[in-house]
């Protein structure tokens, strides 16, 4: 009798501890699944969903240029998942990817010794970590891959890097490439109450209308995904962070996720938040969680 009570309560404790460990991401999991469901439905049959989802597109455009039947992993391609003509141009450029040298230079940076004789290897023993960031740290709050790299530099008496381009983008290109080669997937963790709160704040910012144009990120990348603004099709939130850094034709340069985000934040008509701000990091934490389970797919090319 006593033994069976002990057994039952041990089981109970086990159940509680599992719940406890898994509980902090419960809402985030719901959000992620609901987002997948929405995007798959939206792009199941664009022509049929025209009235509710693509009111400004012509039948011809939907029939000829927007691919339907998209499944979860397709979304890692951003707008090229559905934009047929864009994908053709993309494939042409991808034959001679303009980021290859950057990956090599990133590898050199990874191995290069700091003045104190150490290197990035001490901070990041394995380079296939692009899908593990951002993560939540009890002391620092949300740590992005870029902020972790700068923390490593500072801890070794080196100057931090510009978070938007240059060496930062190159080292991240190497990390992304290594992660992709190793078959890594996005695996963002929310394992404390504080982490959960940071996620919720990031989510709220993503969905809040801002700037003099009164647009939220979601206006363009959730409700607006698949619509056009000027000549560009807007990518879905799902899969939006998986392929960075990117070589952008507009930049003629490689840039980090933060660089792209600052640009979009500016386009909303707001004085953009800094790449290293708490706002940016928490927003990225939310966005990356939404891509959980998708393969790391960087570096990549964008218009």
């Amino acid at each position: 009798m006593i033994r069976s009570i002990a057994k039952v309560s041990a089981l109970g404790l086990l159940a509680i501890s599992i719940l406890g460990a898994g509980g902090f991401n419960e809402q985030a999991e719901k959000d992620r699944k609901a987002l997948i469901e929405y995007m798959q439905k939206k792009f199941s049959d664009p022509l049929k969903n025209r009235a509710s989802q693509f009111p400004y597109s012509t039948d011809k455009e939907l029939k000829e240029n927007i691919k339907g039947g998209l499944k979860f992993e397709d979304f890692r391609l951003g707008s090229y998942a559905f934009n047929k003509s864009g994908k053709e141009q993309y494939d042409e450029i991808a034959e001679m990817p303009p980021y290859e040298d950057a990956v090599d230079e990133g590898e050199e940076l990874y191995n290069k010794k700091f003045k104190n004789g150490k290197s990035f290897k001490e901070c990041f023993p394995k380079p296939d970590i692009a899908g593990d960031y951002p993560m939540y740290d009890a002391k620092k709050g949300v740590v992005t891959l870029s902020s972790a790299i700068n923390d490593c530099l500072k801890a070794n008496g080196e100057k931090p890097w510009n978070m938007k381009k240059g060496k930062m983008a190159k080292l991240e290109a190497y990390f992304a490439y290594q992660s992709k080669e190793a078959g890594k997937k996005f695996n963002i963790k929310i394992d404390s109450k504080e982490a959960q709160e940071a996620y919720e704040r990031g989510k709220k910012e993503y969905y809040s209308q801002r700037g003099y144009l009164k647009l939220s990120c979601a206006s363009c990348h959730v409700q607006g995904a698949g619509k056009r603004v000027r000549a560009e099709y807007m990518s879905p939130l799902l899969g939006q962070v998986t392929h960075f850094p990117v070589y952008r034709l507009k930049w003629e340069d490689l840039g980090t996720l933060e660089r792209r985000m600052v640009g979009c934040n500016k386009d909303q008509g707001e004085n953009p938040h800094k790449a290293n701000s708490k706002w940016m990091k928490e927003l990225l934490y939310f966005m990356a969680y939404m891509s959980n389970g998708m393969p790391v797919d960087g570096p990549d090319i964008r218009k």
Partner: protein
Amino acid sequence: MKIVRDSIIAVSILTMGAFGQDANALMQEAAKLDVKKVCDVKSNGLEKVLEVAKKYNPVAVEFGVEFKRLGITNSVYIKGLEGAIKAKKPEVTLEYKSKGKKKSKTFKTDYATWRACHFAVRALQQKVEAQKTWRLAVPGDGFKY
């Protein structure tokens, strides 16, 4: 007791920031304004409308929601207008940086004053509105499709 009192003081000093008034209270105050009325240059005069912008824009900066249009932040509008209105100039030239290069643009003073006021107040009103509306866009929550 003293610790409690001191920490209350510390916290209120923190939230008061540079405003001498709670930033949150100022935001709630802005939320109730009729922006067309308070920013109407003809009926209020340039000085008064600029005062409205000067009162609320720093709160928008504090909350990270300051507006920026074509490379010019609202702070830059306000700074330029202070001089132009004092000197009674019909036009104001705003200097700003874009991609590291110095640039400038010229506006009619009354138009720019209206805009500075409008931007300052709307940034805060929008932040308050978003508290109620953001969930309406979340799939699986308030967004129905």
